């Protein structure tokens, strides 16, 4: 007893934790709280980029620590909504990585022509720029009317922006360059009407698109597809969650279906590597062969 009274009162005094270790505990508690209270599971997101976004949110909320954000988020649903936006919105552009679309035209379109009906799942579509890009490509190839594109995202706010088909006019110059390099065959400005600072895309382009909410971390497969696109979404997940989503995409693809992922993403560190064949050297387009 005497010895205990003279020694440190709590065990951590023996080895003070680093700020880094404490932050990891705070982060786990925040994600646990959000998952249990709101049902959004960020526990398997890639920690480095997640932390960066959380710290950006802490600064925006004018708070000082992850614990302070936890308190705010659990007591104020409006704060949770702001956090959800900052953790889930992925910025993208039309015809991002033009080469991907050029090779899609060259290698995938001829296969799609042989199908009477084509189902495409665009997973994690964010504000829709790449969905409209694919619609334009399929339209130019004369395939659009037999396609159905299911564009999904975890976040309802970005989906309603995607549904509007309205984008910033200032981005059109960059998108036009991308479009041309992606093998576009017309004048890009044919596809939109400029009004004030906005570009309103031809509503015809969304006739075959269904935008709906789907959470890759918790929801299951909902159809069989000829093409699954999931570009620069998996990078935000840890290996465990990536594996889950790869399973989901594999199960959602018919035999000889095509999977498209981001330029710096790879099948190399997944258990599905053997199930796909690369369609073009260096391009992230894979055909399911097993």
């Amino acid at each position, binding site marked *: 007893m005497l010895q205990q009274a003279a020694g440190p009162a709590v065990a951590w005094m023996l080895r003070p934790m680093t700020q880094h270790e404490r932050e990891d505990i705070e982060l786990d508690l925040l994600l646990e709280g959000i998952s249990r209270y709101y049902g959004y599971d960020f526990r398997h997101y890639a920690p*480095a*980029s997640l932390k*960066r976004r959380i710290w950006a949110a802490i600064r925006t909320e004018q708070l000082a620590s992850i614990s302070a954000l936890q308190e705010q988020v659990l007591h104020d649903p409006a704060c949770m909504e702001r956090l959800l936006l900052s953790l889930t919105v*992925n*910025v993208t552009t039309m015809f991002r990585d033009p080469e991907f679309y050029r090779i899609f035209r060259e290698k995938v379109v001829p296969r799609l022509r042989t199908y009477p009906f084509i189902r495409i799942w665009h997973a994690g579509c964010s504000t829709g720029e790449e969905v409209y890009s694919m619609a334009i490509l399929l339209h130019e190839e004369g395939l659009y009317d037999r396609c159905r594109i299911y564009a999904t995202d975890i976040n309802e706010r970005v989906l309603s922006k995607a549904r509007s088909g309205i984008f910033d006019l200032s981005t059109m110059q960059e998108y036009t360059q991308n479009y041309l390099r992606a093998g576009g065959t017309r004048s890009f400005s044919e596809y939109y009407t400029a009004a004030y600072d906005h570009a309103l895309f031809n509503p015809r382009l969304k006739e075959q698109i269904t935008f709906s909410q789907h959470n890759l971390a918790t929801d299951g497969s909902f159809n069989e597809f000829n093409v699954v696109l999931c570009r*620069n979404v998996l*990078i935000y997940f840890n290996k465990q969650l990536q594996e889950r989503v790869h399973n989901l995409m594999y199960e959602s693809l018919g035999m000889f279906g095509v999977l498209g992922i981001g330029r710096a993403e790879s099948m190399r560190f997944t258990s599905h590597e053997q199930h796909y064949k690369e369609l073009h050297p*260096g391009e992230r387009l894979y055909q399911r062969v097993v």
Partner: protein
Amino acid sequence: MVELIVVGTSLGGLNALTHILSQLPATFSTPLAVVQHRHRDSEHLLVNLLQSSSRLPVFEIEDKLPIQPGAIYLAPADYHVLVERDHFALSVDAQVLHARPSIDVLFDSAADSYGPSLLGLILTGASHDGAHGLKAIKAAGGLALVQDPATAECAIMPAAAIAATRVDYVVQLTDIVPKLLELCHPQLR
């Protein structure tokens, strides 16, 4: 003990990097992760150029690529690179100081994962990117090495890094590899 070296550069970086890589011995085992600012559409030319002057293998980083000894890792165009202890992770979050890849993003996350076993190196460049990140490396107990602005092709980036934090060493380009050997591999000197 330095377990990872992170390097940031922009304008003039190609010359500086090829010089450094050509001087590194094949036995240099501490991995290097490099952010060189470049256009978003630049293809794999840079990795080939750097490989041609390096005895160590040079890889363009893919998501979740493991970090292994004796390798040079280059950030891909138009992605941020982050470090998660034993592997790299990528993001396409907004540009930081007009840059993606951003030096600050690499340095901040590496400081978070590697703490005192990290060395940050800022070379020639025309922006303030990297200054914040080098400060984060020092705050986490790591080492900071900066190319002497007076001898850099473009002094802005190294000068900003020196102004932002108390750096450990400021050396001219030709002294960088000897310094790295001294700090990381005293037995190889």
